[in-house]
């Protein structure tokens, strides 16, 4: 099969540059406007940051699980999540502003306040600034190491075709999944749960994971569709692969709802004040409407739209659902994070847009810049033929 395996033209040359300019404008605008209200800036930044971080982390999980299960179907599209996860190094750099805004975001970082708060005093061995930074370094070190390992082996195989690389990736994937589970969970505890430091839920790691992996698969699909639009990967990623991605998306829509519902339901039913606190904040004022909006468009609508085989294989509809879910993931994170700042309802700020634009521009620019340098699919993966040949019966 002769398929173009390199980006060229607009997507390779101009697109990353345009994205970079957009990103710089966004970040500069956010910094200029944010000087007046630093707390708003850091909250807006955190939402957008988490949005892109969860996509990259989901992609890392996707790659690990493909190797762990020795998947054949996904080989042709695996380069896309590989690029997404390679952006984790960028996410480490973009984490610096959050460290600068610790005092605005996490009130447990204020020692004076902790002294007056019996609960925070108890949690201080875990929730303190030095340990927080140590943990963050540990998470990023493991993610970047894993992402590099899988990226390097996979792209090396493009040149050498060495089947042993597949075997060594399979081997590492088993340990990788353990490291991933622990770092992903504790990063969710650190960066999201500790925004409301009194509150606790054993499910938070799984909940953030569920949204992230779902959006990541949607993003994989969206990038593949974008490339397709420009004439790339039309044969390697065909309707059968979109169908399979669609099934995974459908499955994870249900999984996300299942986890979100279980967490809410158990807390609602038991009705213990120290737990209901979190949901009370998140449904006060028009946050309640917003929460219902998320349930409808993050679960109900995509569930019915994507239940049928036809919908998953109709690329136009597929694009629509994927875009909807990606947007909803942003809103969901907005709903998770923002009520800690604007307690009584949605308060839309220009900083929300500018921060998103900023990180979006830089993230996309780096992504496509790197994409231009490597083959668009794993050229010599031993299971490539299996991936190109399979058909959904």
């Amino acid at each position, binding site marked *: 099969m002769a398929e173009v395996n390199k980006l060229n033209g607009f997507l390779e040359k101009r697109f990353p540059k345009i994205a970079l300019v957009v990103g710089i404008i966004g970040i500069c605008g956010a910094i200029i406007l944010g000087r007046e209200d630093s707390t708003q800036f850091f909250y807006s930044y955190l939402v957008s940051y988490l949005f892109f971080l969860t996509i990259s982390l989901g992609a890392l999980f996707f790659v690990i699980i493909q190797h762990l299960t020795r998947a054949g179907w996904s080989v042709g599209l695996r380069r896309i999540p590989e690029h997404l996860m390679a952006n984790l190094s960028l996410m480490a750099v973009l984490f610096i502003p959050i460290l600068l805004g610790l005092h605005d975001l996490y009130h447990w970082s204020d020692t004076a306040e902790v002294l007056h708060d019996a609960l925070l005093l108890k949690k201080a061995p875990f929730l303190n600034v030095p340990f927080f930074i140590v943990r963050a370094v540990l998470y990023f070190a493991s993610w970047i190491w894993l992402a590099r390992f899988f990226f390097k082996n996979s792209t090396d195989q493009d040149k050498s075709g060495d089947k042993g690389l597949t075997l060594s990736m399979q081997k590492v994937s088993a340990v990788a999944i353990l490291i991933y589970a622990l770092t992903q969970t504790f990063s969710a505890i650190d960066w999201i749960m500790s925004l409301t430091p009194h509150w606790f839920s054993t499910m938070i790691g799984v909940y953030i994971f569920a949204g992230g992996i779902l959006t990541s698969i949607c993003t994989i699909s969206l990038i593949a569709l974008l490339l397709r639009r420009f004439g790339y990967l039309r044969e390697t990623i065909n309707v059968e692969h979109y169908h399979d991605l669609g099934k995974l998306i459908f499955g994870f829509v249900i999984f996300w709802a299942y986890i979100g519902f279980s967490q809410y339901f158990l807390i609602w*039913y038991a009705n213990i004040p120290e737990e209901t606190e979190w949901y009370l904040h998140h449904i006060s004022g028009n946050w309640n409407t917003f929460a219902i909006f998320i349930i409808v468009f993050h679960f109900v609508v995509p569930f019915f739209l994507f239940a049928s085989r036809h919908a998953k294989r109709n690329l136009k509809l597929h694009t629509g659902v994927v875009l909807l879910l990606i947007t909803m993931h942003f809103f969901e994170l907005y709903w998770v994070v923002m009520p800690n700042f604007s307690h009584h309802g949605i308060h839309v700020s220009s900083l929300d847009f500018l921060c998103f634009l900023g990180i979006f521009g830089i993230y996309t620019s780096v992504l496509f810049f790197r994409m231009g340098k490597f083959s668009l699919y794993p050229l010599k993966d031993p299971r490539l033929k299996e991936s190109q040949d399979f058909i959904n019966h």
Partner: protein
Amino acid sequence: MNRVITEDPSKRTPLILGGHDFKGISDLVVKPIEAKAPKWWHIALAFSFSLLMLLLSMIGFLIWEGVGVWGLNNPVSWGFAIVNFVFWVGIGHAGTLISAILFLFRQKWRTSVNRFAEAMTIFAVICALVFPGIHVGRVWVAYFMFPIPNQMSVWPNFRSPLLWDVFAVSTYFTVSLLFWYVGLIPDLAVLRDRAKTKIKKVVYGIFAMGWTGGNRAWQNYERAYLLLAALAAPLVLSVHSIVSFDFAVSQVPGWHTTIFPPYFVAGAIFSGFAMVVTLMILARQLFGMKDIMTMHHLECMNKIILATGTMVGYAYGMEFFTAWYSGNEYEAFAFVNRAFGPYAWAYWIMVSCNVLFPQLFWFKKVRTSIPAMFVISIIVNIGMWFERFVITVTSLSRDFLPSSWGYYSPTWVDLCTFLGSFGLFFTLFLLFLKFLPMIAISEVKGVMPEAHAHDHEAKEGH
């Protein structure tokens, strides 16, 4: 780079060994049904049946005397019955996971295991249903659990997760039974066509529902199978989630934690797979099915045991961490009490059986050693029984008020009832092995290379 390539990633492990053709597969699977039952089968059946009689007499005694014959006390009002219920429902999770979820994930190796596991699922759910049924006290009004319109206008409490259990488990049972039966139809037709006696021909004929194996019939069959798989997949999650609600909706420390639903599901799959491995090792040995249930199948099963066991370990860890992190003294006490209180012995049995031993499956040597996996699979089920015991009993025995603390121990009736439930399970299972094909004949044929149109061309080198 010079690496020793131990396997070729572009090739898949063959699922069926021994060079059988299609007829050979049918002969092999049907043999235990057509041949005279071996001696060990009669002995095992007699033994299981006597345990079943033990169960029935214990139930009779319970109904005659009342629930007082059990070790329940105040504060531990949930004891063996709930523990056994959750234990058996958990075991009943492997079948549907293998037949529905692995089917949707195109895991072809499931074809050698699914029939067997589905049968086990159904029998395990039957065992499970016995316990809440006899736990209600006045068994003769057990039908109150169903929302049946009646003149007394007495309705069950729809807000109670115990009632949701009734719906969840009975739905699961119905769908699993349908799924199993639909899968059996083509194989029942094989048995009908091969039957040598009139009675066999009629009985298998009735249940084969006039299956002819025509093209149209297969098309409908495949469609029904896919739809049932799609219906059954969410049930794998829902049943044990709702079982976990029995505990988690309450305010009892140690019971109320948000990770319970997925954690229970992982634990259920863990124990179910362990039970399948235990039985598979025996069946493939005793009936000579090693070519169909190969080491590759067992290894796949063991990997899933390792994965789900690790998830269970993750949940234990998260519970412990959050109990500390919450800063809630009752929550923290519940977990310290588990590990170091009067039931510490049960807790450490649970941790070592569920978290430590399955980790041995990281080593390929252990994963592919029959004696090792046999022992570990049994250890896992011991551990999972103790997990339910630890959750149920430790939290109840020491709750908020130290003045009302107590200690629970089972009576001989509790122990005999539990033992008897194994009699029910194995009686059904042994009958299944003798009268129904333990492997899905038609599905196994579908994953053999001969089933694919271009196979002969490949062999001839075109």
